[in-house]
């Protein structure tokens, strides 16, 4: 995972509550099998309006924005991680919003994207700076957002997630390196106490008659 330390960029913005992951990444593109190259489908419907009206991510200087400022409940809805992959592919590394859909929020961290919760005057100041196309600096080590006028806005982050972002670490590597013995011990105890949670050959024999996928010919 690409480490996140400090970025400086203009910030694109979308003044809408409840921008769901269907808006960020419409379902018909979920048929694609890769993580890369999804940026062209980000906000697809908003970027291809019949009116020809341009979406902010296609409007210079916001087309090179690495920061995205949203409002309440950004990324609500579907768990599709494609929403984050599409933003990453577009170049977005940080999303600042009043609140987030929880699964989207978690997915951000898995992909080197920093989601920041800000509200009230803090969010308003960031939004103003975004509207003026100011360069905004997001500094993770000091947990501050620096505006062009010198305003410094602090933000909170889970210390584990901060460390993972700073060092580009992924959960799987860390769990396999540090916790696998604990998992093994847990399984031994659980298997003893709640054996029905482990599907043995007897139960799995229910699937013995599963055929090949004939729909593929």
């Amino acid at each position, binding site marked *: 995972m690409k480490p996140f330390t400090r970025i400086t960029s203009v910030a694109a913005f979308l003044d809408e*509550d*409840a921008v769901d992951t269907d808006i960020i990444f*419409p379902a018909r593109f979920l048929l694609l099998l890769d993580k890369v190259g999804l940026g062209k489908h980000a906000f697809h419907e908003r970027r291809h309006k019949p009116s020809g009206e341009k979406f902010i991510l296609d409007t210079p200087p916001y087309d090179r924005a690495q920061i995205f400022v949203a409002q309440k409940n950004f990324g609500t809805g579907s768990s599709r*991680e494609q929403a984050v992959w599409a933003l990453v592919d577009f170049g977005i590394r940080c999303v600042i919003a009043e609140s987030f859909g929880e699964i989207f929020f978690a997915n951000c961290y898995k992909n080197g994207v920093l989601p920041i919760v800000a509200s009230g005057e803090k969010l308003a100041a960031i939004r103003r700076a975004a509207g003026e196309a100011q360069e905004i600096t997001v500094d993770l080590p000091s947990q501050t957002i620096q505006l062009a006028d010198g305003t410094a806005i602090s933000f909170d982050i889970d210390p584990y997630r901060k460390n993972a972002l700073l060092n580009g670490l992924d959960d799987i590597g860390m769990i396999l390196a540090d916790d696998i013995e604990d*998992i093994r011990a847990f399984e031994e105890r659980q298997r003893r106490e709640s054996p029905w949670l482990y599907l043995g050959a007897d139960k799995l024999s229910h699937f013995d008659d599963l055929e090949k996928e004939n*729909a*593929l010919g």
Partner: protein
Amino acid sequence: MPLTLYDKIWNQHVVKDYEDGGSLLYVDRHLVQEVSSPQAFAGLKSAGRELRRPDAHIAVADHAVPTTDRSVTLPDSLARRQVARLVENAAEFGIPYIPIRDRRHGIVHVIGPELGFTLPGTVLVCGDSHTCTHGAFGAIAFGIGASECECVFATQAIRQRKQKTMRILLEGERPEGVEVKDFILAIIARIGVGGGAGYAIEYAGSAVRALSMEQRMTLCNMSIEAGSRVGMVAPDEKTFAYLEGRPLAPKGDEWDCAVEAWKQLVSDEDAVFDREVVIDVSELAPFVSWGTTPEECAPINATVPDPSREVDEARRAKMQRSLDYMGLKPGMPLSQIRIDRVFIGSCTNGRIEDLRKAASVVKGHKVADNVAAIVVPGSAAVRIQAEQEGLDRIFIEAGFEWRTSGCSMCVAMNDDRLTEGERCASTSNRNFEGRQGKGGRTHLMSPPMAAAAALTGRLTDVRQIGRNQ
């Protein structure tokens, strides 16, 4: 210390607590589908990692599959490639894959319980936000992203922070014509689409105890529409009766031991919840959504709300955008909104009881001219059961199309989708912009309400439809 249901299951699954406040949570069950798994399997392969516990996963393709003629092979398409990828991955990693034409096929959230794969007291995950459905059995069940699916494949565990808890007490008697779909829409209208964020919801109260397992699944299913990844109901005799004899449920002595353990899975009487919401269901009416978020819904006898009366600026702007997208004018009675399509199905409302209720409204009537209506059973088992009961004939004779199992028009990844501007009465869970097809307009409601709309061609109070016995 008194514990909530959530606390108890959580505590039973903590592998370790980290110093930073996070926990490593053990995962008992993982449902795998075609959309959220390809990248997870690819990550596993590229890192050369093993899948830790093949017996803890079941794979099925539900999102992208056609619901029309299943006897033909899938045409060369992105959907075919996605299904083929799941087939290959399941074979490579040794997990059961349920083919599209199999009698056990269906939407992950319908077949998990049918198979007895979903059990009380488990932690169950799936790369799909409606995984909260399984909480109806007294499980901590939640949707995860593809990276987290990869983590579960490799480690059978997942890093989590414990949620706060919210109890939603549903009391009173359910009025005639009011369904559990109306309960959950009313809850979402009350607490908002972000109201449950950060919380694990437990649904309790006399009106919840009175619900069947399928109704509890509908209730828990839309917890995510209230912002909460986790919604749950304490298991009881109904839960045990539903599960007994299911293929993957415990048997014999093991069953007795399991039931004893499951009986402990209730919130202690003096357990404290971080938030409590009480709703008297006896005051509810059938709900329909009018906007583009699930909180934008109202009783069928209401009118389209007027944004100019909303004092909060952000809410006013959101309402106006919703009305513009939905093509609605303030003050119009909801029951005058004409529809083009009807969709009965989904992991929310695609089970046998849903189809029975819809059929009882439809029986002896005809679908209105200019309305195209489909029924998509949530699983092959639901379809077979419905056909045994003759429900398929009722729907077909009324003018519905009778389809095969899948997510269908709830997610519009196959050919079941709305075209620009089309308006649909839908039993699904999301009325987001474009959710049922680009430019499509969705009104969420219960199966009987969708059936009523099919007959009249407009949003309709089902209580005003005459029943033919």
